[in-house]
């Protein structure tokens, strides 16, 4: 076989292979060129009649051509296979998937976890405490003696054994301080109870209490930490405002408002047209409270805060009736998956 003939064969074979439309055509061409009786095989067989020198050069060229065609065939076959797979008819892809079961945590649990997570990051220790409390821990140790009008702010459930249901998470401040030595940072979530019920009040609800005692923790720090908290939980753009307030167990006392998330501070029904939503009460721990746990008031100072979990969850999730949380209707719970 002459070099020109070889070249012509190569060109023809490649052209035919590349124009194969399907796997059957391609197979026929493989047989035609590379099969036992194919043209290349035949040509290789006819080498034996050639003189040695020619046998070497033509043989090398033929083998080279065989490899090229085999490689080309493989590639062509792969691409035809791919095309064929792509043409395969599928199933109704719009059907829903076969889902593993997945429930949900209660929105209040989710909110508590989120609040605690923010403070845990800041090195606050999560603590818990009893829900049935004594008058001492719930009131007196918090600078609310029996005759104090501030008791009006917290309608209390009493038990027949003389104990009461804690009206706020603040007793955990007292317990935590008694169990520890300063400096300390605690965050204490839990259920609290007050005897009133309507669209905005539930006889049982949740609070999270925070307390930081150190030798220099100041009012500015209180502002810094709580502003940080507000932005973490309600978003970076949240504006906060601090208003003077009164709690018997803090002095100075503050309430923190955030810019209304519904109207963006422009004023709406939810924020009573003020543009602000009150979310927590706080203050510098009152010296009487520190004295009640035998802390040296000339050395230790710090801040405490308490926030209503339902209030925050209602703002976050846009819920207008507190009772939904305790009805536990499945449709409601499923919203928080």
């Amino acid at each position: 076989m002459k070099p020109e003939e070889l070249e012509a064969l190569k060109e023809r074979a490649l052209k035919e292979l590349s124009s194969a439309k399907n796997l059957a055509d391609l197979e026929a061409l493989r047989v035609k060129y590379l099969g036992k009786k194919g043209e290349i095989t035949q040509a290789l067989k006819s080498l034996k009649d050639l003189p040695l020198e020619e046998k070497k050069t033509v043989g090398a060229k033929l083998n080279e051509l065989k490899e090229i065609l085999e490689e080309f065939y493989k590639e062509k076959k792969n691409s035809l296979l791919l095309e064929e797979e792509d043409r395969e008819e599928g199933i109704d892809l719009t059907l829903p998937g076969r889902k593993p079961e997945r429930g949900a945590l209660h929105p209040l649990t989710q909110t508590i976890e989120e609040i605690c997570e923010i403070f845990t990051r800041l090195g606050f220790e999560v603590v818990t405490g009893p829900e049935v409390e004594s008058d001492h821990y719930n009131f007196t140790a918090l600078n609310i003696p029996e005759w104090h009008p501030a008791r009006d702010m917290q309608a209390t459930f009493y038990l027949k054994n003389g104990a009461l249901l804690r009206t706020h998470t603040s007793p955990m401040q007292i317990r935590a301080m008694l169990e520890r030595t300063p400096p300390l940072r605690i965050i204490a979530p839990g259920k609290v109870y007050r005897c009133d019920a309507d669209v905005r009040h539930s006889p049982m609800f949740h609070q999270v209490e925070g307390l930081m005692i150190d030798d220099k923790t100041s009012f500015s720090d209180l502002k810094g930490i709580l502003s940080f908290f507000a932005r973490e939980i309600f978003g970076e753009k949240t504006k906060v405002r601090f208003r003077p307030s009164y709690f018997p167990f803090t002095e100075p006392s503050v309430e923190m408002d955030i810019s209304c998330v519904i109207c963006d501070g422009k004023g709406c029904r939810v924020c009573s047209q003020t543009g602000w939503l009150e979310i927590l009460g706080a203050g510098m721990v009152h010296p009487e409270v520190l004295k009640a746990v035998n802390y040296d008031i000339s050395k230790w100072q710090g801040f405490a805060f308490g926030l209503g979990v339902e209030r925050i969850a209602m703002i976050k999730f846009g819920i207008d009736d507190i009772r939904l949380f305790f009805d536990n209707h499945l449709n409601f719970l499923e919203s928080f998956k």
Partner: protein
Amino acid sequence: MRVPLSWLSEFIELKKSPEEIAEILTLSGHEVEEIFDLYKRLGEIVTVKILEVYSPEDLKEVVLCKVTDGRDTFTVLTSAKDQVKPGLCVALAKPGSYTFSHQKVEVKEVKNYRSEGMFLSPFEAGISEEKHALLTFPKDVPLGRSIYEILNLEEPVLEIAITPNRGDLLSLYGVARELNLITGWELKTFTFDKALLEGEPFSGEIKILEEEGCFRYLGRIFRGVKVSESPFFIIKRLFLCGLRPINNIVDITNYVLLEVGQPLHAFDWKKISGKQILIRRAKPGEKLLMLDGVERIFTEKDLVIADAEKALVLAGIMGGEESGVKENTEEVFLEAAWFNPKWIRLSSQRHRLSTESSYRFERKVDPEGIPLAALRATELILKIATPTGFSQLVDLYPRPYKRPLIKITPKKFAKILGFEIQKDFIIETLKKLGDLQIENETFKLIPFSYRQDLEIPEDLVEEVARLYGYDQIPDTFPIAELKAKAPTLEIKTERKIKELLKGFGLFEVITYSFIHPEILEKLNLSKEDERLKVLEIENPIASHLSVMRTTLIPSLLEVAKFNATREVEDLAIFEIGKVFFPEKELAKEKVHLGILLKGEKKLLPWEGYKRKYDLFDLKGILEELFSALKLEVEFRPFSTEPFLKRGFSYDLYLSGIKIGLAGAIKNFILERLDLKRPVFIAEVNLSEIYNLLKEKKKPLKIHKPPKFPSTFRDISFLLDKEIPFSEILSYVNSLEIPYFEKLELLALYEGPPIPETKKSITLRFWFRSEERTLQDEEVNTLQDEIAKKIFEYFKAIPR
């Protein structure tokens, strides 16, 4: 507290709009909850024109008017029959609105004549004292418009939430004084004329017999007073503040209370026996019929104002019916006192009686402001009730109020605030709070007597910071030790359980800690059951929330019921919460986990495959949960719980201690609760688990990839239905089979053609050696040996 701005402006020049004043007060710690126009709040009171007037024969005192508001026509009955005539424009209060004297206007029917509202007099419209004439408008007045818009009248009122420490703000003058402190707007003071006259000698006797209860007592007699209706400006202001007018003397005491915050009381002097006013403890069992019509019985802890014979007034709280000022009263004794706030508070609570007066005494009145209140009342009585004479003002003040001395340094301000406020500002502010002395670097402040909330240095820090503006103080992050404790095992485990159960497809619920005592009875508990020994709430909000729960089961069943009546029959829920048992002092609180499965389990909904929950769904959830917690919990069949179906229940044991229950609720209980069957429930005492977890934990068994292949053999046989699977399992484990790896229950079948007393079982035994590949022959031998032993032991029939 309601603050009508028209009244407030008598004491301070208001230089801003109501909204701006509200903002100023709010940002200074006195939250303005609402700004409203009292006129608007009355409802729809509009201009109408009378179209026709009828005088039906069967109506005598009234006539019927047909009126229009420009759009619709109404019929209105009115007794002003001499005044109404067609074409007259009058004020109509529509049904649902209120007159200025708090009378609700409703649709009325008199002998088939319908009256859709009421024509108002200027008095009932709150505009003037005119009661008899109707309020009329020019003929061309626009119809259907608010009369207050037409007359261009408004009465803006601020509703301020005064914090309990600021009793000094429970008055118009107090709010004006605070606004002056915040803004510097000029305060207007009271001026007196005749009230400053000495008066006649006091013709009776006043004695403070209990100095702990009464710190100061002022009194004065007025002779020849004319008790009648108050002038309109007083009536109007009382209404604006939500009080009802009674008569001019009583109204003046209330008016002064609102004005300066000092409660006053007026007695009919002629009713006072022995001309003696005694301030003493009540005698045990002493009774008094009081102004609210209720007779109360006092104890020695109550302070009363008495005459020579009997108690007349529950001091500082409410007066007696008998000695009060009425139409025929001619001589009035006026009281202005300062009672011990604690006594008043406790008395008021004991008798569940809170009044405008007790509310102010509890929050501390100004001891030095009492004469001012007495003079102000004198001035008004002289002007309005025109007495023929009055006595001197008796002032008993045995232990004068001693104002505290508060010392503070600028350093203290900086330490608490974390920020240095300019010294000048501090000094300027302190001067407005009391008498200030500066010694070296120390401020010494004696606060004004009305600022009894200022007691300690921290109080002054708050005052200065508040007037400086909280928002002017920077936000910083504390510098603290970089140290924090990990959450406790309890907290971590509870979180883990919640996450696992969520992953198993359950929804968490949160229910009230209090339950209905009856639901515990419905659970069929025996009398000795400790879950019946509940903690009762003294003052429950309702009977269905009257005891603390001792189990979560009632709460979960309530949720199931709530959902079932609202179209949700299929439920898989859990709750982690506390249960409460009585203890000497507080309560024994335990954390429980409750699980409830009910209705159908949704599997592959679009392939149409659904099935009811069964016991093994519940058991599987618990098994997986305990496995994840590395706890070997034993499921002992046949729970002893009286509310669970015996054959479908377990008691759960851990290290020999009962930690819970699981099973199907008995049908009759479900019927009692009106719930569809079946309902599966589990309750686990997590507190017990936490205790055991702290003691020991099952170590992890680490499996490496096998080096040699495993092989299995199946054994099928029939055996007695009664033999539980657990027995087969423990028998197999006792055999100590060589190379035995694990056992699987491959098939379980009961029913034809298997005999009725039998069940068919196929077990798959897995074998593996760590050293080599097992030979078929040796495994066959093992299979034969095992089969033989099982068949013998259980009298089973090979299949």
